């Protein structure tokens, strides 16, 4: 291979049918069969499907009933998110052995910036093959890798040769590489933008590259400028290390200073509901709870505790915070209160069963019901009524109990 200079070497790694491949790995009797991993029930959706099932037109995010119609012989397995997360951590660790700059997109997908490693590790294609082998040896799963000089082109490339493929777009070859592809492959080009481009008689990415940029900008504004650049393979966006979420919190700077445990409780109540809703929407539970108070003199106080079992409803979070409030000296004027959920765990991790009904068990059910209503009718479509110690302001600024 000729010695090429890579201004940047960006890898996009995509695990092949990740969830389904793990299920097959752990139960080899599923090999070669159409397999769907996804939620059961009337409203479940497909999380992923094996390549055998994809041949029947089953794709991610398709409603389960439709998937079953297209492929009635498919075997359906419920997702085991904590297992997938564990495998994902292992895979990401391997990526980090290759480069410190790894940007995970999801459990099964990541960008790796390998720029400047040629002298150390050799040509990018060889590195990609080695990475595939290391991943396979560690977790017995295959992945497909796209190698290019940018995020955009590497992502397109990883999808060209699935499964277990390596696709390299050498520096300078971007425009030719992209030219034959339909323009819908560009992320962010939805039906609306595609329609506008088709109206200009543009069908492929190459058509966009050949089209006068000024006209595109005139028609589509900033989007036009972005498309013109991408169509030539120009995408300067950097790969950014992203840290995984370790806590989920909310805080509020008060319009007027408060003091005392009761007022702190009142200020925390709406924050706690937001945190609890956030936890549930991300499928997490909190193993720890932290209270944060900033006094008028800017002295910061934090107190933390671990509830007996991980929690995700506001009443249980509040019970924990209340214990912290009881222990804290809150007599001085306070300008900010906050709370955060820490030690986050997947909600489908094994949960310690309860011998006695937790005092907050009813509330847990209630909040799940509220979530369902909000999901259907939108945020704030339903709210709790006022609770003891929970004032809200009525018309004309009057306090309403």
């Amino acid at each position, binding site marked *: 291979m000729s010695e090429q200079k890579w201004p940047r070497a960006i890898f996009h790694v995509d695990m092949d049918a990740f969830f389904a491949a793990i299920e097959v790995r752990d139960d080899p009797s599923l090999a070669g069969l159409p397999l769907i991993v996804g939620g059961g029930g009337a409203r479940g959706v497909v999380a992923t499907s094996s390549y055998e099932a994809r041949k029947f037109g089953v794709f991610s995010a398709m409603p389960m009933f439709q998937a079953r119609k297209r492929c009635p012989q498919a075997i359906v397995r419920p997702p085991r998110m*904590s*297992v997938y*997360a*564990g*495998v994902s*951590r*292992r895979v990401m660790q391997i990526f980090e052995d290759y480069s410190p700059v790894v940007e995970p997109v999801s459990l099964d997908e990541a960008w790796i910036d390998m720029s400047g490693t040629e002298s150390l590790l050799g040509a990018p294609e060889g590195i990609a093959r080695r990475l595939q082998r290391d991943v396979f040896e560690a977790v017995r799963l295959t992945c497909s890798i796209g190698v290019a000089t940018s995020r955009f082109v590497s992502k397109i490339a990883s999808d060209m040769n699935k499964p277990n493929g390596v696709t390299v777009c050498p520096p300078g070859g971007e425009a030719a590489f992209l030219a034959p592809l339909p323009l819908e492959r560009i992320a962010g080009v939805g039906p609306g933008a595609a329609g506008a481009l088709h109206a200009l008689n543009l069908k492929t990415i190459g058509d966009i590259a050949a089209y006068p940029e000024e006209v595109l900008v005139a028609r589509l504004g900033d989007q036009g400028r972005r498309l013109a650049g991408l169509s030539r393979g120009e995408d300067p966006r950097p790969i950014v290390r992203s840290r995984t979420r370790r806590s989920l919190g909310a805080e509020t700077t008060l319009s007027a200073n408060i003091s005392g445990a009761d007022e702190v409780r009142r200020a925390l109540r709406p924050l706690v509901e937001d945190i609890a809703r956030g936890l549930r929407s991300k499928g997490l539970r909190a*193993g720890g709870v932290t209270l944060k108070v900033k006094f008028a003199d800017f002295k910061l106080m934090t107190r933390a*505790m671990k*509830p*007996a*079992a991980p929690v995700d409803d506001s009443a249980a979070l509040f*019970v*924990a915070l*209340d*214990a912290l409030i*009881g*222990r804290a000296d809150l007599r001085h004027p306070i300008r900010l209160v906050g709370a955060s959920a820490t*030690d986050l*765990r997947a909600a489908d*991790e*094994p*949960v*310690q*069963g*309860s*011998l*006695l009904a*937790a*005092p907050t068990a009813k509330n847990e059910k209630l909040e799940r019901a509220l979530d369902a209503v909000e999901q259907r009718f939108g945020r704030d479509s339903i709210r709790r009524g006022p609770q003891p110690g929970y004032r809200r302001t009525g018309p004309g600024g009057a306090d309403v109990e």
Partner: protein
Amino acid sequence: MKITLDTSTLSRELFKLQGVVNSKGTMPILQNALIEASDSGELTLHATDLDVSVTTTSECEVSQPGRITVRARDLYDVVKNLKGERVTLEKEDNQWMRLTSDTVRVRFVGMNPDEFPQVQRADEVQFVPLPTDRFMRMIDRTIFSISTDEGRPNLTGALFKKAGADRISMVSTDGHRLSMISAPVDAEGKQLPSELEDGVIIPRKGLAELRRTVDLTAPEISFGLRGNNVVVRHENTTMFVRVIDGNFPNFDQVIPESKKERMAYVDRATLIDRIKFVSLFSNTKTHNVRIELEEATCTISAQDPDKGECEEKVQAAYDSETVQAGYNYRYVLDVLNVIGGEQVALELVDTLSPTLIHELDSEEGERSLFIVMPMRI
């Protein structure tokens, strides 16, 4: 005040106060020991954190009766390091106290003894005797499952309650597991205090202090109630423990009915050892280990997506249907480590119901039962 006594006696008695003196609280005097000498030749040492109070009495040579109070920790640190066999404590002006022993001279800053909280008197308490080892077994079998969750204060102590005629029980639960033991009590014709009909909740700290300070060589302790305190006396020491205000949950209804034919008999030491081994592969956050009972076999297994999986089979006397459940292995070990007997009986009802662990070969007349709630997987 001026007294002289054996260094070893003073050291031993001061040790009993150390768990109670409060080093971080807002009342500085609670870091102190109150020292009282009577003209009858009796030395009383006293410390309290307002929830637990300890009073010990011992003989000494009283040259001049009186009271002083100094920091208990400092005094103990000095006394336990003295080489001299005898030690003299003497009150000086301005609440200072002078300690002399052999070649040592120490002067402690003291405080006004009148500021020390009122010392409770045990004079009117109706005491009931209980063998010391029995009382210790009751604490040992319940203290580990007391809740540490301040959100549920009524679970942060063990319920001490009358259990039928001439029996007393101790029960604790943290909502995930429950431990109970009942034992005969020889009231020598005296009535058990009526408060014990409904029971009182003794906080963990009080039980821990009792376990730490009770003289195990003494054959007997005695207990009683005074106001909202449990009073325990052993030898020369009296401890007042303020009981927790609240109702202990009604636990009878969560205990599944035990059936002999469901029990699996396993060698206790083997089970402890093998659960520890398999737990190397349990998830570090959930501590989940699975136990499966099938004919003549108890299978222990664990798996973790980051580590792998591990399984071991242990012999069991069992011939009922196959049943399995997952547990926080530490909860199971807590029980197995505290009970006696070569064998233990496990009773798994099903994957989600409370699991019973029976102590076999209990001491005379004692009955204990442990419940561990499985994890939902």
